[in-house]
């Protein structure tokens, strides 16, 4: 198997077999406590390799529930979630807040590794929150809050970062720039992006897991995205094709 130099870091060689970074959900069934309705019935899906992947679906189909299961924050389901070459899973969502006793710059600095200052500066500039680094979290706009929260997660040690609506309330241009920055700065990491913006997902994501209603079988469908590395360099026809596939799958 011929590998590019950059890919070697996310493959490992054990007993002559190449193990690829992968997260696999197998035969997952789950219903919320004290309810009769199943959220998942024999759900199976997988995401393979590093890069920017997506979990897409209508509201209420269980995207957050599945994300929390993958992150190990939710138990009590049947089936298996297996990961390979993924030791650290983090789950960031858009309802999170910083403690209010210090500015967001100080709070970020207090929770990152000593070697992370260059990365912090790079992310702060790319995410466009430099002017508010001394402000308290409560003084930020919703979009700034989400960007600040995402930055502090990116400064942590992780193999898979689940971003649950982490770029909500951020304008489209900035969102695109942020996603491309993530793909450039963290090529060996795996991202699972949850968003309702179909065009954004079709444009920037590599593998798209489309979640369907529990009455449909299979409950997930896998679509290949355009996985663009630049914002405007795309063929409209291909993008439309991907979006159509997502619509048909959901």
């Amino acid at each position, binding site marked *: 198997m011929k590998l590019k130099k950059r890919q070697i870091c996310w493959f490992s060689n054990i007993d002559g077999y190449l193990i690829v970074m992968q997260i696999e959900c197998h035969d997952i069934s789950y219903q919320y406590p004290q309810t009769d309705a199943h959220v998942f019935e024999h759900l199976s899906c997988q995401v393979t390799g590093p890069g920017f992947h997506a979990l897409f679906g209508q509201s209420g189909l269980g995207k957050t529930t599945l994300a929390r299961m993958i992150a190990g924050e939710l138990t009590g389901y049947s089936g298996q979630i297996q990961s390979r070459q993924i030791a650290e899973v983090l789950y960031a969502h858009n*309802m*999170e807040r910083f403690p*209010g006793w210090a500015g967001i710059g100080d709070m970020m600095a207090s*929770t990152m590794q000593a070697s992370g200052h260059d990365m912090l500066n790079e992310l702060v500039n790319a995410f466009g929150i430099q002017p508010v680094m001394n402000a308290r979290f409560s003084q930020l706009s919703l979009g700034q809050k989400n960007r600040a929260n995402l930055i502090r997660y990116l400064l942590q040690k992780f193999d898979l970062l689940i971003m649950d609506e982490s770029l909500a309330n951020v304008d489209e241009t900035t969102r695109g720039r942020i996603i491309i920055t993530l793909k450039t700065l963290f090529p060996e990491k795996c991202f699972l992006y949850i968003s309702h913006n179909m065009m954004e997902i079709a444009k920037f994501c590599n593998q798209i897991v489309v979640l369907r209603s529990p009455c449909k079988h299979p409950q997930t469908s896998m679509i290949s995205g355009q996985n663009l590395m630049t914002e405007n360099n795309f063929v409209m026809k291909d993008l439309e094709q991907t979006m159509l596939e997502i619509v048909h799958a959901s």
Partner: protein
Amino acid sequence: MLHRRIQQFFLVYFLGLLSLLLVKYLLNLSDYVIPGPVEIWQTCKSVFARYVFNVLDTLWIAVVGHIISIILAFMVGILGRHNSWIGSLIKATAYSIQAYPIVAVAPIIFILLGDGLITRLLIAVMICYFPLLLSVIGILSEPVDSIEHFYVSTKRMNWRLQVRIRAYENINKLTTVIAGSATMAVVGTIIAEFIAADAGIGYSIRTALYQSDLSKILTALFLIGIGTSLYLTGLEWVGNVIQRKCQI
């Protein structure tokens, strides 16, 4: 703040006094039962200075008792915030003791420790400690998921950070609870003095009761009200300063 609180107290106090005098004149009660306004005023003038010192004596015990209760409540509350067996044990014990009237236990404390300062302090602490503890446990055991999630996920959470987050997020509740428990501390001290102590305004009220001197009791109540208002206003001021600092 002080101005408003004192005004409110004056209004309530003089309405009460007026009602008492109204009852006296409507039912034609003798001065022995309810003294007239002139007698009340003269008694007030004669005992005022002594009663001011008695109120100050009571207040400082109440303040020290209150501070001890706050420290104890936070120390035990930090332990009791967990859902572990120790947390459950602390909560169950606090609920059981809270349900028991401390006043009923007070005579035992007087028998064992005498009628000195320690006894008054202990009763004041016991009366305001348990309600304070239950409130502190309730506040500190409530997770602030939106903030704590990051620290739990990244394994950076420790007990100090957890307590800091929860206390900071509930600073308004905590300051209200602390200010509210101050009244309990004052009440506790006066009860202790009333039962068996040999000093303080509670002791003066007991003496006045034995003399059936309502004028002295009314003067004592007036000064207790003023003293408590001053203490509560001081606490509210400190609470507001803390809240303002937290919101910067």
